[in-house]
């Protein structure tokens, strides 16, 4: 039985902190570039921006050895099943970073050929805007994801947190129904 399947909520918070600390310290991203954002992703991994400062310079060539998928670029309809398969092949726990506007919302490609946001296919943990985002922005978003992983609850607490997040999202006013200034 892994720590994810702990039966109840007691004693978990300390374990959560410890597990989050270890997990965030060695994320293994999968080698997965789709378009121009991948160039910035490679730059982030190379010597100038040096992603290895945060324990993740080795992009794994197999999704079975990875726990972070950086969706770097627009996802075409033809590529969508491949993206999903890569995600399915990654072992739990796993996280998805949607890099750039194209992966996040379709971006400038509002047409028949491109999936309008990779969250139609896989659950996304963090969205990174930009066209393409600078390597510093990618590193910043990875650090933000680290914080998210550090604070991530486990087991029962995680399921409760997911349910609460879903309820809050259903309650929220859709963006198109908001009034007032664009801010």
């Amino acid at each position, binding site marked *: 039985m892994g720590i994810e399947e702990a039966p109840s909520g007691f004693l978990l918070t300390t374990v959560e902190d410890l597990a989050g600390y270890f997990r965030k310290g060695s994320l293994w991203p999968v080698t997965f570039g789709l378009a121009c954002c991948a160039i910035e992703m490679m730059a982030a991994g190379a010597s100038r921006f040096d992603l290895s400062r945060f324990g993740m310079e080795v992009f794994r060539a197999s999704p079975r050895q990875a726990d972070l998928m950086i969706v770097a670029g627009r996802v075409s*309809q*033809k590529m969508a099943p491949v993206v999903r398969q890569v995600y399915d092949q990654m072992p739990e726990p796993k996280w998805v970073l949607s890099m750039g506007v194209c992966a996040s919302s*379709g971006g400038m490609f*509002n*047409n*028949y050929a491109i999936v309008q946001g990779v969250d139609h296919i896989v659950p996304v943990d963090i969205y990174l805007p930009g066209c393409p985002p600078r390597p510093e922005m990618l590193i910043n978003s990875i650090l933000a994801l680290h914080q998210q992983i550090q604070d991530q609850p486990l087991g029962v607490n995680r399921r409760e947190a997911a349910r609460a997040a879903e309820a809050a999202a259903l309650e929220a006013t859709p*963006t*198109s129904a908001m009034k*007032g200034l664009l801010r």
Partner: protein
Amino acid sequence: MTEKDPGAGGGSAAEPRTDVTAGGDVLAAPAAPEGREELEVVEVRTGMFGAHGSGDTSGFGGLVRPVTRPLATPRPYGGWYDEVVDVLAEVLAEGGTAFDTAVEGVVVDPPAGSGARTELTIHVRPEHIVAVCQTLRDDQDLRFELSLGVSGMHYPGDVGRELHAVYHLTSITHGRSLRLEVTVPDAHPHIPTTTTVYPTNDWHERETWDFFGIVFDGHPALARIAMPDDWPGHPQRKDYPLGGIPVEYKGATVPPPDQRRSYS
């Protein structure tokens, strides 16, 4: 309009023009200059986005672009073009095919003498494309060994000749390039495959099938290449909708590009 008139879009100028509306829209395609033959106009497109029905707010409503078909060029074509066409006709005749049966026309564009660098296009009838390719590849005076691919074109206004396949051939031996063009009707979009002559055309023909719906008869595996296998339609045709979804902003929703209101 040849002269700039800062005061108006044509209507209120000193001499009123009959071929221009008050909004600046040009009613007829511009006439060809003296001494040049009229091109066959297939279609006239106006404005920027192809939408109609409301006032022009963009200033692009006056754009007029006639879509024309080139005329067959009279001899001499200039340079090595005459030699290549002569050799092609001779070798085809030896194989039992008359040149005029296999070839609809030869176009050198822009016309010789205009000073610009010209290009040779041979318009081939679909049933003879394989024989023409074989001749162009194998004859020692032609030797077009390299095919750079098969491209597609769609002219929905050109009834009976809607779909074109274009083959770019290069002779490494002689340092020459020419273009073959095959026209088929939308109702019967069938061209024999050239993969028997140029194996590299395999994926190119799959691409042209995928995007334009031209069927290459005899192709070893004519499957879609860029779109998913179960995709309906052929996306690069002019009448294929762009698609897209409405984009939600705070307090507003913007429809996808081809459903927005007209700007011309």
